[in-house]
């Protein structure tokens, strides 16, 4: 396997608050390869954004990276000086935020913001930078970029602004783009356009993408692989098709079942009782244990490791590889066909619903 563009190893992020230290990320590991789109899904507060910020080095006090490594093309970047980090941000890692309305400084022309960013990273003069900015705008599908470049953000519609944001992130041809819910604030029709755009650009440039969202549909459309996060941990990671159609983790299974789709006809949705714990009350053992229909003694005491299906026996920890890995004790329990159990569960829940 070629060296991944981004490799996150056992990343822990903590927030020091008055009420104690909150662990927002707890030993998160994953890789993203060249040209690959890794989807990160999970409920609100699962730690998706924190993961993105940690990778690009934007965790601000009281937050801190407590342990673990972030490797960009094999080079550690989590412990760089702020100045060195700055040269990576924007140049080698681009980032897109959720809200295009607030991501752009309202007082500066779109062009000024683009030129400034370009010139920060590339040795171009003002005129060249402007030229490049126009090209970029054209690339992200803004009509008449020569004219629009002198517009202010408030003169753009939401979808257009998100395109500008994308252009800003792509200024210096980064190797990795982190997109934190890039379409949540947009309408479905616009969302589709933006996703298509993102996909196209990354394919053309071979950029790796970390796509954070809680919309499974977007992931299914866009991602190659997907990581399901729960309470700051990766519950399951694997190729998108597998995770969507045959999720291993009971949480992932519940999640998939609870999504209404155009295709499912059942009257009822699968529902996971309760809600995700807050950071200051994460249960011991498996974080999902209070909500899991299959909880047993081990889940309450021991935290399950993220292990690939094939790696179980060996007990190797390298669960973040390209394969399909899950953090659930069921799959370690001898004599239990966990997969069958989880799948049956999903069907059963839906069935009870329709019967009622």
């Amino acid at each position: 396997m070629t060296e991944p563009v981004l490799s996150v190893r056992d990343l822990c992020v903590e927030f020091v608050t008055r009420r104690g230290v909150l662990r927002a990320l707890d030993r998160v590991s994953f890789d993203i390869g060249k040209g690959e789109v890794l989807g990160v899904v999970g409920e609100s507060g699962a730690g998706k954004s924190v993961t993105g910020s940690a990778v690009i080095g934007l965790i601000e006090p009281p937050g801190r990276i407590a342990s673990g490594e972030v490797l960009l093309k094999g080079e550690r970047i989590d412990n760089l000086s702020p100045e060195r980090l700055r040269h990576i941000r924007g140049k080698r890692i681009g980032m897109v935020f959720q809200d295009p309305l607030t991501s752009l400084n309202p007082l500066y022309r779109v062009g000024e913001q683009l030129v400034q960013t370009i010139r920060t990273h590339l040795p171009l003069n003002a005129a060249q930078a402007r030229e490049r900015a126009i090209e970029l705008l054209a690339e992200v599908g803004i009509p008449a970029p020569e004219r629009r470049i002198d517009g202010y953000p408030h003169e753009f519609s939401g979808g257009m602004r998100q395109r500008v944001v994308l252009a800003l992130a792509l200024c210096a041809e980064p190797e990795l783009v982190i997109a934190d819910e890039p379409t949540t604030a947009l309408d479905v029709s616009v969302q589709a356009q933006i996703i298509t755009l993102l996909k196209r650009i990354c394919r053309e440039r071979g950029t790796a993408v970390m796509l954070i969202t809680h919309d499974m549909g977007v992931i299914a459309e866009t991602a190659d692989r997907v990581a399901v996060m729960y309470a700051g941990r990766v519950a399951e990671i694997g190729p998108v098709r597998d995770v969507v159609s045959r999720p291993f983790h009971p949480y992932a299974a519940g999640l998939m079942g609870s999504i209404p789709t155009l295709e499912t006809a059942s009257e009822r949705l699968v529902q996971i009782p309760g809600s995700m714990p807050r950071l200051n009350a994460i249960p011991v053992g498996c974080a999902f244990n209070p909500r899991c229909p299959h909880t047993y003694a081990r889940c309450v005491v021991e935290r399950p490791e993220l292990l690939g299906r094939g790696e179980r026996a060996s007990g190797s920890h390298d669960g973040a590889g390209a394969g399909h890995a899950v953090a659930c004790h069921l799959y370690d329990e001898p004599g239990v066909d966990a997969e069958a159990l989880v799948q049956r569960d999903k069907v059963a829940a839906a069935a009870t619903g329709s019967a009622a």
Partner: protein
Amino acid sequence: MLAFILRRLFQSALVLLCVGVIAFALFRLVGDPVNQIVSIDTPFEQRQQIRKDLGLDDPSIVQFGRYLVKAARFDFGISYQFRQPVSTLIGERMPATLELTFMAALLSLVVGIPMGVYTALRRGSFLSGVFMSVSLIGVSLPTFLIAILLRWIFSVHLGWLPSFGRGQVVNLGWWSTGLLTVSGIKALILPAITLGLFQMTLIMRLVRAEMLEVLRTDYIKFARARGLSDRAIHFGHALKNTLVPVITIAGLQLGSIIAFALITEYVFQWPGMGALFLGAVQNVDIPVMAAYLLLVSFIFVVVNLVVDILYAVVDPRLRANMQAA
């Protein structure tokens, strides 16, 4: 833009009209102005004559109209105390007050903004702590105490700076300025500091709060994520956004600078409008009081208009609003 200015002007005129009503009501409220004017042993006939001369026999509305017409031509009547046209008196005193308030405002901005920016950027640093403490003390010490203290130290004890007055002034036409002579500038230092200190701390705290707010916004986060340098982020993106609300507040503060100039002028015997007004209050010199009020609100209105226009210059969103596409 034109419409905007017109509207502001209209509103301003309204404000001035209201203040005019108040000023005029002042005349009426205090009862018979003749009582205020004449001294001992003025016979009744003479009083009647004065009453007639002043046009106090006419109905109120007529008097008000006349007052407004005169006021519009900067004719505010005669000071009861000095027996001079109020406009002359104020005209003579205005340069002093304007120079003082201008210097104080300048000081508060030039020192306050950088301090605010610093404390926002270096939260928790020692110097920030010092600045914050100083600022708190600045808002907690009444202006007059500061004035007393400063004068006690710098003019009486150390003898470095004059304790009162404007020093040597130079007349440029009708404007008398103290800015062109050494003694004039020396005389300006203490009053300007006294007056500016409170505003400075206010501005500093405001800038700090706004800056912190701005630093939390998404576009700053996004700018960081694009790898822009701290300088570009702090002084390009953040500062400019910070200044937008600061401009408004600073404009509003001008009103209070003028009000507080009163105390400063009183303590330092600064020959400005504030001291004039204070004397007027003590002597119930209503024409001076009324004219001062009108003038202050006029200045205020003008400053506000300028602030609003400035606002538009800084913020393209408002510019768009105003341009009435």
